[in-house]
């Protein structure tokens, strides 16, 4: 019997696991604090388990007999790269502050990932920087997220 354990099944199992952990953590809470989240967590575990079993049963029904259960992985390299860009943006915001990190991110994304010309990359970056600096820092006087690096450097 050939049945693929795919991302959908894994997602079911992750929800059951996380809700169970939440339920365990919340078992010592007082009645008023714990009643609602514990009730919802139990419902989520039951409904997710039911959904998992039903979908798995449907898959077994549709599968061909005589093959083994296999685990299928489809997580793409391209997706990883894009999420890595986002993570790098957040880390650079923490390091350099929001305005500098945003300008850096826009420029590098356009130039390195987008493979756009120097002129377009610089023009868009300058536009983004001017928008943040003029509208938010100068006009609205909002103190944007500062970077920890500037504190370290004094």
């Amino acid at each position, binding site marked *: 019997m050939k049945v693929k354990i*795919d*991302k*959908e099944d894994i*997602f079911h199992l992750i*929800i059951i696991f996380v*809700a169970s952990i*939440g339920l365990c*953590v*919340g078992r010592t*809470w*007082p009645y*008023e*604090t*714990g009643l*609602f*989240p514990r009730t*919802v*967590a139990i*419902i*989520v575990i039951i*409904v*997710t388990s*039911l*959904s998992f079993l*039903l*979908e798995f049963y449907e898959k077994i029904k549709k599968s061909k007999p005589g093959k083994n259960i296999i685990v299928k992985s489809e997580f*793409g390299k*391209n*997706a990883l790269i*894009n*999420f890595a860009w*986002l*993570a790098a*943006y*957040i880390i650079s*915001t*923490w390091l350099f502050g*929001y305005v500098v990190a*945003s300008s850096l*991110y*826009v420029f590098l*994304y*356009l130039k390195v*990932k*987008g*493979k*756009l010309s120097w002129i*377009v990359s610089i023009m*868009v970056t300058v536009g*983004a920087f001017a928008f*943040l600096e003029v509208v*938010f820092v100068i006009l*609205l006087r*909002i*103190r*944007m*997220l500062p970077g920890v690096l500037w504190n370290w450097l004094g």
Partner: protein
Amino acid sequence: MLKGGDSLVDALLSGITQLLTPIYILMFSLGTIIGLFFGILPGLDGVTGLALLLPFVFMLEKKAALALILGMSAISFTAGAITSILLGAPGTSGSTATIMDGFPMAKKGLAGKAIGAAITASIFGGVFGAVVLSLTIPIFKPLVLMFGSAEFLAMTILGISLVAVLCGEKPLRGITSAGVGILISQIGADPIMGLYRWTFGITYLQQKISVVLVALGLFALAEIIDMAIQGMPISTRQSTQGKFDGVLETFKNWKLTLSSSFIGAVTGFMPGLGSAVACWISYALAMITCKPKDQFGKGDIRGVIAPEAANNASLGGALIPTIAFGIPGGTLMALLLSAFWMIGLRPGPEMLRRNLDIVYLIIWTIALSNIIGGIILLIWTDKFAKIAMIRIEILAPIITLVIFLGAVITNMNIWDLWVVFGFCLLGWVMKKINWPRPPLLMGFILGPLIERFYFTTMMVFGEKWVMRPMVLIILLMAVFFLIIGYKTVRNARKPSNR
């Protein structure tokens, strides 16, 4: 100033006269433009705009200040639709449901039509909310007293029952999604004892996660990342239908516009529910009542009209308890109330007796702000629509910048960005494996409300709360929607409907 005993008509006319003074028009236009700006940027809304304007309110004359803050507050929801449609990023929490069909329409090259419909529906909803507010003035007190915590609880149950409609073809997945949304909303201090739940000693988690962060990550950033992965622009097709097609569609669907505006006004009237709930309830009801239903979620214009009419109408509804009793129904109303006090107005029964002309001035301002702001946006619609055609390599970093700006602007906390990142990952995975995302957001919005109203209701009414006439009516409606939702899902699963 009008004294008690003056007729409603005198107060109504006095309101118009004051509205047409040059200083009022100037400040009100300025407020409208500021509101458009705050509404259009994801994460920023009327609340942010009002918070930033409050320090300036002191410096202005009473009516000039009133014009500025009301012009700004009334229009922010209208502008919020633009980014929801073009970028899949809700401009305000009241525009989260607009993404469901607005963004797919932009992908199909119908951004202009969607924006045209959204703006027209918003104008209609805003004016409807103002009309409801003005009509209910004579019956403010009995109307507000009709609704207590039991009715609010029933209304939240009605809201969560609508998840059945938003589930898609696999209802169990939808229920799970809503449950996960409720569980996530429980992170932080509990509303009864103030004890921390699932914070794991992390200070950041002690405050509740903002719905804006969830919506930005789950929908906006997840969509942009998905397009960046595929290397596709938002739309590959030139816009074939313009804003006036959208305007016409709104008039063609006048019953939907009217009913959604009514839902918006009623939901807005209930403290704590607000525009975020109003837009989802009206969206789900549109799915139930409209035929054919198979295009909902894939770019149906009615899925844009319903939430946009509702979110604008909710402001008029929310002002009823604020003006009648000085009880704010949400953050925006609380700030508005603070602004009223700062300029020397005392909302409550006293204001209805002594300053009825001001009450009507507020109503006229809301109506006019929606009309003028809507016209300004309509003029620019075709320009906005072209954004959808820009190459994703250029658009992705700029939209990401705007999304992150929306995430950090309120608290200036780096953890907000990680929360958006986390929800983006969750939203992208859910999109890829066909798990419905709207129930998660609905659960997240309604979870804390259900809990709070449940405990208040049990303390006040005990088990007898279900026997209250208004509660019974609302709960019967919830059962009705559950049945309709089940039927909708069942019909969608029939092979002939695929």
